[in-house]
């Protein structure tokens, strides 16, 4: 995908020496780099900077598992040198613990800490890791609840949750399809603009959440840059893939919309699964209802490019699965192998995918309208844009606090 930097291409000259020249220019900087490294290591010319200060240390908590035999946390080291965990405090008390694997942690390495601490259901706990230099790294367990285990019961219940928030609302949204088939030009513009509006909301939402999660990840992942690069890469790849045979329309466009929404739901599912693991406090069933209302619009959006076709029913099933199914997978992965950087990555890719779909749906709108860019400012389009994003915003009020 990304190529290593190369020396600029040489002019096509007949002389052999001239043709070898580019190779030399390639080797020269590499040799200089090698020399610089060798000099740094052997002569240590920067030793004046070693002022006796302890090494920079960084420790990120990536997972927390609460079970009947205590607390397990997965930590990732990010120190300038290998760092050693000396002691562990829980709630301001030194506690027995084991580290796996034992020994100093290299930069980027992870280890599990197992602390047989008798935690209390529904209450908060604070973990504080003390390194051998005396630096401390704190982690808060806001609400202690047992972490779902990898058994069939919890996998099934997570799948049910995923279906309710991912698949069911998309299917319900698609059920508007027959009612929408008869719409005229303005109606079509309205529906496509509605789709763009809801996608715009999702793009903003996914980006914001990706940045938030990236902030929780270990510094060495450079979360902010990762989010931007992943979103841009997803956008460009999907644009290139989608435009291989001209601008996508009809089923192809619907598939891209479903894919974008599916990627977003994968990221959402990862985050929801992580909330399972972290045991965030519950408020009630209206949240699930709110989620369903929120996501119904997605089903309408996927159907919109298909209004001029008459695809078989299995196409709808496949699209619904593509858009809603990833929520289930995300939930499983999120609760079993959660780390903030992976959720951020999934959401960033989702944001890039959604941006691609926004471009394509807008292009489709202009083409199907026949008037080009004038269609974008028609009252029906504006109403759809405002309506779509407003609908998403208002239904999101039910699920955000």
């Amino acid at each position, binding site marked *: 995908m990304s190529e290593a930097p190369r020396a600029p291409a040489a002019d096509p000259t007949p002389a052999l020496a001239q043709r070898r020249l580019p190779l030399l220019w390639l080797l020269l900087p590499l040799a200089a780099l090698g020399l610089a490294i060798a000099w740094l290591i052997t002569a240590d010319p920067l030793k004046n900077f070693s002022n006796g200060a302890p090494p920079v240390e960084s420790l990120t908590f990536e997972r927390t598992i*609460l*079970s*009947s*035999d*205590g607390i397990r946390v997965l930590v990732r080291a990010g120190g300038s040198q290998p760092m*050693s*965990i*000396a*002691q562990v*405090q829980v709630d*301001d*008390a*030194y*506690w*027995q*613990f*084991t580290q796996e694997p034992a020994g100093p942690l290299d930069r980027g390495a992870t280890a599990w800490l197992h602390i*047989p*601490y*008798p*935690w209390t*259901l529904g209450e908060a706990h604070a973990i504080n890791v*003390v390194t051998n*230099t*005396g*630096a*401390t790294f704190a982690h808060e367990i806001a609400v202690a*609840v*047992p972490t*779902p*285990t990898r058994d069939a*019961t919890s996998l099934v*219940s997570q799948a*049910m*949750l995923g279906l*309710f*928030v991912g698949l069911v609302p998309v299917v319900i949204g698609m059920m508007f399809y027959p009612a929408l088939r008869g719409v005229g030009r303005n109606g079509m513009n309205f529906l496509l603009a509605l789709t763009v509006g809801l996608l715009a909301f999702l793009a903003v939402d996914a980006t914001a*959440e990706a940045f*938030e999660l990236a902030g929780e990840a270990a510094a060495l992942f450079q979360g902010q840059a990762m989010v931007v690069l992943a979103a841009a890469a997803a956008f460009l790849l999907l644009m290139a893939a989608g435009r291989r045979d001209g601008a996508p329309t009809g089923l192809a466009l619907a598939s891209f919309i479903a894919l974008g929404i599916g990627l977003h739901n994968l990221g*959402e599912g990862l*985050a*929801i699964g*992580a*909330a*399972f693991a*972290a*045991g*965030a*406090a*519950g*408020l*009630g*069933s209206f*949240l*699930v209802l709110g*989620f369903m209302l929120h996501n119904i619009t997605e089903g309408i959006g996927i159907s919109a490019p298909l209004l001029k076709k008459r695809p078989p029913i299995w196409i709808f099933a496949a699209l619904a699965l593509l858009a809603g199914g990833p929520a289930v997978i995300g939930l499983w992965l999120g609760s079993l192998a959660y780390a903030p950087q992976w959720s951020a990555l999934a959401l960033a890719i989702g944001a890039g995918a959604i941006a691609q779909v926004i471009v394509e749906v807008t292009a489709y709108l202009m083409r199907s309208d026949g008037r080009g860019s004038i269609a974008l400012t028609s009252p029906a389009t504006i109403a759809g844009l405002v309506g779509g994003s407003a609908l998403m915003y208002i239904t*999101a009020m039910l*699920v*955000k*606090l």
Partner: protein
Amino acid sequence: MWFRERVSRRGLLWGGLSAAGGSVMLAGGSSLAQSSHSGHGEAAAVSPAIPSDHSSGHGAMTTVGEVDDERNGFDPAKLLTDWETGTVSTLSDGRKLRTFEVEAVDREIEIAPGVMFPAWTYNGRVPGPALRATEGERLRIVFRNLGSHPHSMHFHGIHSARMDGVPGAGLIDPGDEFVYEFDARPFGCHLYHCHALPLKRHIHKGMYGLFVIDPDPALHPEHEEIARSRLLGTPENVQWQEFAMVMNAFDTNFDNENEVYAVNTIAHAYMKRPITIARDRPVRIYLANVIEFDPINSFHLHGNFFDYFEQGTTLTPTLKTVDLITQVQAQRGILEFTYGEHEPGLYMFHPHQSEFTELGWVGMFNVVETVA
């Protein structure tokens, strides 16, 4: 304001669904919670990973591993009875002159297993040497600063302004030497510490120690027997099991809060290796508090009561029959008690600030019939 607290929708969903109650979910959730609760008792009670037998006393609440006493250069078990008596000579007027030599040294010490602390020390140990003299002697303390910062020795005692160990009076730069000279009075349990500025940093980095002046029995005819028992080395004194204890703490990440609490520096040292005491001989503890950042410290004895001599400047107790005393920074005193009528066993002692206890300041007396 409430919705600004960022419990995002993913966070609330878990509770949402469990309340919405997929019956599967509810059943799964509650059984998990149950099992976790029943599990706690076992986890706390068994704690199989701690090998020694006294571990059941503190369960899993402990620092993990062992401190390398050899690398530290001092052993908390030996600090208890390691009195520095200096060298004694006789002055022309017949009085005794007692000379101590103390050096300020920068030293990295291990204060809890694996946790290193860049300490400033007197004679390479924290707490510094437990100086012990007798009432009325002339004291001469030769102090050399081999450290990287200006330091001093400020004694809690009676002396002239010139000998006070504050800036301008015995506070010396690295490489310099100063001789503090004054009479040993009043008798009691005192301390010394560095009085360089910033004071907080110089004290909590490790620059403090006990300064005990034993009463001269000849000067206290009304309590001569008691004074004799306090005077180090007399036959009456040998009966006593005397321990030097300095309650200290360390702010390892320098955020003005202590990460490690202890008595005599090493967290949990006397928990992992209890202090052996013979049942039939009385116990006397010279106790001082030097912790920074927390306003108060305390000492609580399990299964027993003690007499307390505030600052040790009296021969009769200032508090009789108590099992808890409190000390602010630099407060100190003498505790006297006996386990003569107890059955042998492990008797805990700790401050009754549970936080300090759980962060390392807790120990055990192992009361035995006879000491080998």
